[in-house]
């Protein structure tokens, strides 16, 4: 089967890549690729969707915007930064991927991520699983009670909620309170052992931010602001972000 040649006209343009370069400091070094492959060698997503970071960048450089803006590889990438870490030219492939994600029409973005983002926007918990502040409080108090009663030495363990003026505001990934509540406890014990003055909140308590993964900048910002406000409202000094 002969593969069709990619026909490159005299006026080849790489619109997408150029656009992203405008947005990044030093153009993200997006032109500097030596095609050495160090990125592809370390990328956990290399090979998925017949793609890897080196090929992705090359297609962008060639102006094959049609293809790279449609490949689902951009959703296989986890923005882990292994590529840019070893890249001799420090090329910002993660940003290229991110902007590719952004170019997808919202409703075509992966269903799971989209649903989680939408869910997080429902209330001020920002929980991708739809848990409310009250749900959260109830689970925490329930588990705490059990620990105090059944674990020797931990009778005085605390898991404060909405403690105004606490030094640390701890957030919590929704998965634990919803499906594996006991997994929250080790963190409480650590905070207790180091003598930290901390608290959970009922607003902005969920640590995850699926809108970021969705490349939905607006809602990403919105969620972050809700969380930040929750911390400020309680007068806490530090936001301990567990994500």
């Amino acid at each position, binding site marked *: 089967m002969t*593969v*069709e*040649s*990619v*026909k*490159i*006209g*005299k*006026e*080849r343009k*790489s619109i997408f890549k150029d656009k992203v370069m405008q947005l990044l400091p030093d*153009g993200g*070094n997006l*032109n*500097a*690729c*030596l*095609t*050495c*492959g*160090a*990125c*592809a*060698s*370390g*990328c956990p997503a*290399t*090979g998925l969707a*017949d793609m*890897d970071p*080196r*090929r992705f960048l*090359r*297609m962008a*450089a*060639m102006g*094959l915007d049609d293809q790279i803006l449609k490949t689902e590889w951009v959703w296989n990438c986890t923005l882990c930064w*292994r590529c*840019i*870490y*070893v*890249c*001799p*030219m*420090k090329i910002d492939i993660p940003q290229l991927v991110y902007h590719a994600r952004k170019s997808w029409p919202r409703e075509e973005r992966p269903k799971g991520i989209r649903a989680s983002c939408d869910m997080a926007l429902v209330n001020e918990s920002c929980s991708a699983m739809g848990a409310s502040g009250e749900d959260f409080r109830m689970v925490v108090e329930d588990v705490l009670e059990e620990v105090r009663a059944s674990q020797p030495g931990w009778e005085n363990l605390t898991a404060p909620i909405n403690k105004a003026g606490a030094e640390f505001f701890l957030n919590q990934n929704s998965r634990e309170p919803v499906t594996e509540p006991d997994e929250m406890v080790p963190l409480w014990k650590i905070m207790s052992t180091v003598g930290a003055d901390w608290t959970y909140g009922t607003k902005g308590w969920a640590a995850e931010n699926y809108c970021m993964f969705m490349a939905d900048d607006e809602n990403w910002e919105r969620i972050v602001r809700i969380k930040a406000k929750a911390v400020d409202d309680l007068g806490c000094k530090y936001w301990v972000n567990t994500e």
Partner: protein
Amino acid sequence: MSEVVDVSGEVGNFVVKVKKNPRYIDMEKCIACGLCAQKCPRKVDDEFNLGLNQRTSAYIKYGQSVPLKYAIDGETCIYLKRGKCKACEKFCPTSAINFEDQEEIVDLNVGAVILSPGFKPFDPSGFDFYGYGKIPDVVTSLEYERLLSSGGPCMGHLVRPSDHREPKSIAWIQCVGSRNTNRCENGYCSSVCCMYAIKEALVTAEHIAGEGLKQSIFYMDIRSHGKDFDRFYESAKAKGVRFVKARPHTIEAGQDNCGVTMRYAQEDGQVMIEHFDMAVLSIGLEPTTDVKQLADIFKLDLNQYRFAKTSDFSPACSNRPGVYVAGAFQTPKAIPRAVTEASTAAVEATTALIRSRGELTQQKIYPSERSIANEEVRIGVFICSCGINISGIINVDEVARYARSLPHVVHVENNLFSCSADTQEMMAKKIVEHSLNRIIIAACTPRTHEALFQETLQETGLNPYLVEMANIRNQNAWVHQREPEMATAKAKDQVRMAIAKAALSVPIERTKVNVIPKALVIGGGVAGMQTALSLADQNFETVLLEKSDRLGGNAWKVNTTDQGEAIRPYLESLIKRVETHSNIQVLKNASVTSAKGSVGNFSGTVQVNGGQREIAYGVAVLAIGGRESRPEEYLFGQDPRVITHLDLDAMLRDDPASLKKAQSIVFIQCVGSRDERRPYCSRICCTHSVKAVIHLKGLNPKMNVYVLYRDIRTYGEREDLYRKARDLGVLFISYGPERKPAVSLDGKDLTVKTYDPILRMPISIAVDHVVLAAAMEANDSHELTELYKCAANADGFLNEAHPKLRPVDMSVDGLFVAGLCNYPKPLNETIAQAKAAAARAAVILSQTEMTLDAIKSFVTDKCDGCALCLDVCPYRAIKLENYQAANGQGHFRIATDKALCKGCGLCSATCPKGGVYVHGFTMDQLRAQVVAALEDVA
């Protein structure tokens, strides 16, 4: 032990303050016996072996150090730091230890300075993903050299650090600390790592016995751009070294922390996981740590990578008059260029100080030679222990006892180091005391110290050729380490043989030849002109021949140097200087028609404008240049839009507007190079391409430019140009020789088709122009090589005598080579080589006469002119002439040219009549040696 701390003054008169750090060992007394190191209790990391093993505080840098003297490390010595120990002092047999030694500051009054502080190997500890420092079997290339070296921590038996087993699979990772602006600031290419990795891979095969050795080199581009470097690369491939165009992300430790595991993506995207017994990081070359200090002291300009900043037109000159730079400090480079460009720096200094040549040096004066004609043979035998090198295997006492029993021997002794200065003094005394007239030195190879012993003899009034060496080190102790008894027996044989030969030795005269202080330079391009100027500035009359009617050669056709300096103004100024210089005679439309003679004394005829004239000269420099070949592919010659680099440069000069209009241009590299017809790299094309594309993008930023390449060879700081080209949006697409691009015409449309291995798709590019990097060829040198009996290599490039030790000398004494005719090179390297040729030529021209070694052939009466020897002489030093014998009969007889003859002995071996022998190696002497060798055989 010294460093420069300050400098004042100016060229012609600098005062340099040098701090001499204390050695704590008196160099006059030290005989390098090694006892101090043996007794020293304090161990520290051995920096020479890069910390792979340890040395003591009392140490010698390495076994063959010059000077061969020990030192005490003041930073770690227990006595110097804490007032306890002094074990070395107790045991030193010559009381050479001097703890009172102080730092000394001296003022040196000099006319010029050459800075060659070298480089610092890149430290990859910061590259945490390679595991250097954590994974034991990850080493740097320099550490690997030490592991391979017989003087190194494993004594040459290569084992891996983790479990000391022989590694069978080794991976090299290229470009560690070079071409990297993410994890370090070394955007440049270190120039040497590709070649040294290939060398290490090949040399490893000499150290690992048996099957199963697998060497793999992981690279981005293989930069084998020097003379014969591509052949080296191809031969490595043929020998099974695997070249993988990939870069691993992380190196992980193997099982039990032995060996390594690497994951890498091939060019086609496939991910491979491989285990290796060892990984070698090919580290780059950085400037030394004290380079900032040096720059401050000398007020030197450095470039952004802190290497010396120089102009391409004067590569050895710094910004400060009288201060010159050489070696890796000027820019990372390999040994051939370092040696060449050291000569360049030397000649710059020479020329600045020309009025004082010879002022501060002196000729050594020897006592007149005594005649031994009427003396009986009295032989002195000096048996060297060479520390423990020899005496550790051979029983030197036994050999000495044996020697005493041999005929003619009147004095025998055993020295620890026969070559040391104090032994020479003692030897001279014994020669006089015992009236010795033949000396045997049973020690190392003549190649190390024969000249030294010859001098010692001369200083006592003996002819230098009355010393004979028996090599009981390289040819005995070093190779029979496991058989000491047989080694001792063999040493006795060797001494006996040497004595048999020496008994027949007679004094031999060294020939002196006059030197005509005039130079002939053949070729009026930049190389020829720079050489001529350099020689002329040193007050040597120079004749410059140019075949065409115009000086300048290829430089007329090239726009800028690699650093972007404009060539035309420089060229015009250079030509003017040459044409008006009172010591240069320029002959155009000229060529050499005949040549005879030898170093110091050449003569011949030159054809100028149709007429012949005679010339006489002491040295000749060949700078006949090269040319761009005409491609035979890619529609070159069939479509005017397909052009070469020089065509492009012409267009950029004369008609840039037409290029500005272009929307799409493709460059194709390696057109006619690195193929079967020309299996070499033309070296300058990659750089020229990136310079050209940058220029084109400057004319029209929207232009789409593509470069189709096999390896991009922008070495050194030229890498910055490659980076700039990419940053401007130029696309570089690689291709392999088995899948070359194609240029086709479709109606009026020109298209270039190629396969992009990263896209994994064939692409077809519509273009306005195709620029071909046509191979460079040497200009035809057949006539000259015939005339001068010198040689060109298989690719037509004139050969230097030795690529590293004598890179501008030719193998015929008195001939030098410079420029493109030697090998393709950029303008700055041509200028450097041209000046270096002048430096080397000046060494000859600055003497009024030259002394040649006396080991030459001589003709006897038995020669009857059969002329069998004529053809075997590699130096064509033999000719046939008419001879009138004593009885009046005329016949042919050979005559040998002492200047051309190198004493190889082929003539003597070929002659069936005893008509020609070699002084110092006559048939009688060799026969005596053979008889002596077989004495014990039944």
